[in-house]
């Protein structure tokens, strides 16, 4: 157990969306910057950098997290999932992503990466989640242009299709 010096860069190894990857970070490097600038995974967006907007939401070891409130060195050895993990393969979107498209649940898309991660986590853990739960989870996100109604419609639609086992929506 050693102290990582502020002025030096340190190797950080993570499993990012199923792949073992590594990068270098000083202790103060935000996980958002590590993902985007070191690992070049730019799907995760950065809005406020103090935990309020939700744009940077990802999963660390299976649990939701604001990546702007974590430092890269904290996640050394962890499993990270970002919005890039959602599509089952190149050129195909997940059921939830397709529902977003169908219901026009995004305009500029700035907030979308984080919202998708939160809703994907919710529907994975609680397939029967209804509108109340969806609203509760959405409260952790700010969307400044789409408005929340289409997002809620998309989430409810995705939930229904996932329950019917419609993997290819």
């Amino acid at each position: 157990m050693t102290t990582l010096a502020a002025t030096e860069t340190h190797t950080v190894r993570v499993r990012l969306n199923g792949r073992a990857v590594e990068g270098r970070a000083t202790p103060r490097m935000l996980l958002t910057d590590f993902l985007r600038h070191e690992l070049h995974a730019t799907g995760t967006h950065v809005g406020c950098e103090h935990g309020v907007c939700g744009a940077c939401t990802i999963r660390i070891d299976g649990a939701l997290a604001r990546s702007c409130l974590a430092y890269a060195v904290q996640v050394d050895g962890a499993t990270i999932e970002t919005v890039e993990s959602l599509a089952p393969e190149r050129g195909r979107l997940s059921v939830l992503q397709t529902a977003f498209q169908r219901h026009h649940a995004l305009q500029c898309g700035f907030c979308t990466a984080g919202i998708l991660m939160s809703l994907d986590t919710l529907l994975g853990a609680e397939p029967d989640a209804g509108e109340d739960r969806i609203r509760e989870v959405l409260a952790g996100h700010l969307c400044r242009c789409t408005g929340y109604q289409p997002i809620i419609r998309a989430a409810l639609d995705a939930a229904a299709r996932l329950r019917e086992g419609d993997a290819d929506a």
Partner: protein
Amino acid sequence: MKPAPFDYLRADDISAALSALHDAGEDARVLAGGQSLGAMLNMRLAKPSLLIDIMHIEALGAIREEKAALVIPACVTQEALLRRSDLHPLLAKALPWTGHVQTRARGTVCGSIAHADPSAELPLCLALLGGEVSIRSRRKRRTVQAADFFRGMMLTDLRPGEMIEAVRIPLARKNQRFAFTEIGRRHGDFAIVAVAAMREGDTLRLTVGGVNDTPAIREWATLDTADIPDALNDLAWSLDARDDLHATARYRRDLMRNLGRIVIEEVSS
């Protein structure tokens, strides 16, 4: 919005964390869920030279019951507590108000107590229930009652070199009834005013958050229904309600009277 440089130590066990805290003194900060500290560092409201990450200390990971109390060690997240099947009825009511699903997944119970935000729900619950804070430094252990732990706005009884090892919350007894409610701008935002109540026989206990710098506690041995409005009005005026960006003092007093009535009715019905 990037923090000032700091050294980082991932502590494997509590003694390593406490030694590092001892050696670095006031320059070090414990890093738990980072849901408050991260924002303070990123905004440079705090510039510690060393962060001691305690979240990999296995011995502090599991909730246990001990002597009629729930013992919640430092690494337990708010989400883990909320998922507990036989959760204390007051915590089951108050925890869903603490931040969002996304912040509860990493934010810890002890971190919220240590942070001591005047609007935070967990300090309010700890004060209402007469909980205790178990504190440790390299050489000493001590226990502080909730009422003595909170000293001011984001100010606690913790001294340099000390950390919270766990908080202890007395288990609910059958003859106790609890209620909680708050008003904020949006669900999950910090409360403008939060109120928690407990009734045990004729005794009624109320705590108010978001008004004074620390949770305000009032207890009535008996309180007739007819006297409730006056009692709540006295309470509202006795506290230090101030105007700020979020609400006027007058609105805060109004909320205390109304939310107070709601929780008292709930525990009395």
